[in-house]
C-alpha cells in the first residue's frame, strides 16, 4: 500500500463499498478500500442470492469474489485494516487503523461497514459462543447431523436456515420472540416439516450446560408465563443485525447506531459519506446497497473535486 494521501478511503468491502470503489476509481479518484476480514460483508454467509439481477441465482461468496475482482480490475487498492476512528481535520480526514496504528490521510471517507448478527446477551451465551452457539448454519450445521438443535428467531434468516437445518438434524425447535414473520411460503414449509416444533412469543432466559451446551430455558410472554427447557446439542441465533459504526461515534453522525444520510449519501459531517446496510434505511438488500454505493462515490468524488477548485 502506498503511504501518500488518498482522494477517497472506503471503509468496508461489502457490495456497497465494492460498488463505491468502482465508481470512485472511474471518477479518477485515488481510492483505497479497507476491510478487517475479507471482501463480501454479510453476503458471504448467504448460500443463494436470487434477487440481484444479471447473475441468476448465485452463491453469496461467489458474488463477493466477482465483485471484488471487478473492483480490482477497475484499479481500486485494497488492504486488510480494522478502522478504529475517523479524525476530522477540515478538508483532510484521517482514517486510524488498529493493526499497526496506521493513519491514512484522505479528502473524503465513505463508511460502508454494514452490520453483524445481533446477540441475545443472556447468561451462558458467552460461554458457548462458537462452541455450541453459532450464527452460520451452512458453516456449523453438519456437526449436528442426527442431533437436536434449537434455532432462535422468526424472521427470514431464521426460517430459511431452519429449513436447511431440519433436513440435517434429528429434532429442530424454533423459539421466537414474536410469531414467525418470514415469507409466508417459507413459514408454511417449515411448520410442515415433521421434526420441527415452533414456540412463538418466548423470551430466552439462559443457555444451560457446564462443559458443553445442554439446553435452552425460555419463558412465554403470554399471561401464563410458562417456562420451558429444551435440551439440545446446538443453538443457532438469528435475531437481527446490529450496526458496526462505533468508530464513528465521535463524529456525531449516528442515529441509534446507524448512520443518518441525505439522499446524496452525505452525513452531517462534510467529507464523510455512508452507504449500504449501515445507513438508516428501509430495505437492506444487495441491490439497494450497490445503489447506495454508486451514489456515495459519485457525491464523494464531486466533494473532492470541489476542494480542488
Amino acid at each position, binding site marked *: 500500500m502506498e503511504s501518500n494521501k488518498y482522494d477517497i478511503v472506503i471503509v468496508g468491502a461489502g457490495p456497497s463499498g465494492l460498488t463505491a470503489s468502482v465508481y470512485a476509481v472511474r471518477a479518477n479518484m485515488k481510492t483505497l478500500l479497507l476491510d*478487517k*476480514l*475479507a*471482501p*463480501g460483508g454479510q*453476503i*458471504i*454467509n*448467504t*448460500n443463494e442470492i436470487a434477487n440481484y439481477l444479471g447473475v441468476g441465482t448465485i*452463491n*453469496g*461468496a*461467489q458474488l*463477493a*469474489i466477482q465483485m*471484488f475482482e471487478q473492483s480490482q480490475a477497475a484499479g481500486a487498492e485494497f488492504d*486488510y485494516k*480494522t478502522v478504529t476512528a475517523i479524525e476530522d481535520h477540515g478538508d483532510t480526514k484521517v482514517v486510524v487503523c488498529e*493493526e499497526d496504528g496506521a493513519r491514512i490521510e484522505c479528502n473524503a471517507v465513505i463508511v460502508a461497514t454494514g452490520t453483524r448478527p445481533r446477540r441475545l446477551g443472556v447468561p451462558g451465551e458467552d460461554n458457548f459462543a*462458537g462452541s455450541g452457539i*453459532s450464527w*452460520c448454519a*451452512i*458453516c*456449523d450445521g*453438519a*456437526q449436528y447431523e442426527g442431533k437436536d438443535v434449537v434455532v432462535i428467531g422468526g424472521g427470514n434468516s431464521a426460517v430459511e436456515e431452519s429449513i436447511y437445518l431440519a433436513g440435517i438434524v434429528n429434532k429442530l425447535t424454533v423459539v421466537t420472540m414474536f410469531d414467525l414473520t418470514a415469507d409466508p411460503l417459507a413459514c408454511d414449509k417449515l411448520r410442515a416439516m415433521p421434526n420441527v416444533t415452533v414456540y412463538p412469543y418466548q423470551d430466552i432466559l439462559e443457555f444451560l450446560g457446564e462443559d458443553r451446551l445442554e439446553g435452552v430455558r425460555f419463558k412465554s410472554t403470554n399471561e401464563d408465563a410458562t417456562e420451558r427447557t429444551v435440551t439440545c446439542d446446538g443453538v443457532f441465533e438469528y435475531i437481527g443485525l446490529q450496526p458496526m459504526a462505533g468508530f464513528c461515534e465521535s463524529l456525531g453522525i449516528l442515529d441509534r447506531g446507524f448512520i443518518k444520510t441525505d439522499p446524496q449519501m452525505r452525513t452531517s459531517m462534510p467529507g464523510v459519506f455512508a452507504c449500504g446496510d449501515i445507513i438508516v434505511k428501509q430495505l437492506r438488500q444487495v441491490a439497494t446497497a450497490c445503489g447506495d454505493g454508486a451514489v456515495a462515490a459519485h457525491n464523494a468524488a464531486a466533494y473532492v473535486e470541489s476542494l480542488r477548485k
Partner: protein
Amino acid sequence: MITEVNTPQYDALDKKGPMLVEFYSKTCGPCKMLGFVLKDVDKSNPDFRIYQVEFNENKELKDRCGVKGFPTLLFMKDGEEVSRLEGLKQKPVILKEIEKIKT
C-alpha cells in the same frame, strides 16, 4: 504454496516443519472467503506450506483431527497441532500464528 489433499495424501505428507491445514467445505461462504485470504497469505509466504482438506469428503480425517465445523485452520509443527482458529479470520491474525510456528 497451497495444495488440496485428501486423506491418503494427507497421511503420506512429510509433516516435518511448520504447515497450515485448512478444513473447508465447498458450500461454505466464509470458507470461500478464507480461501481468498489464504491466497493472499500465500503470496507473501510462498515457501510456507498450506494444505486444504474438504471437510465432507474426509470425515474420518476431520474426526481424527477433532475438527467440528468449517472453516477450521490447524497450525502444525513437526506433525503436532500447535494452535487452531475456527471461522473466517483476519489476514494479520493468520500471519501471527504462522510466525509462531515458524520460530
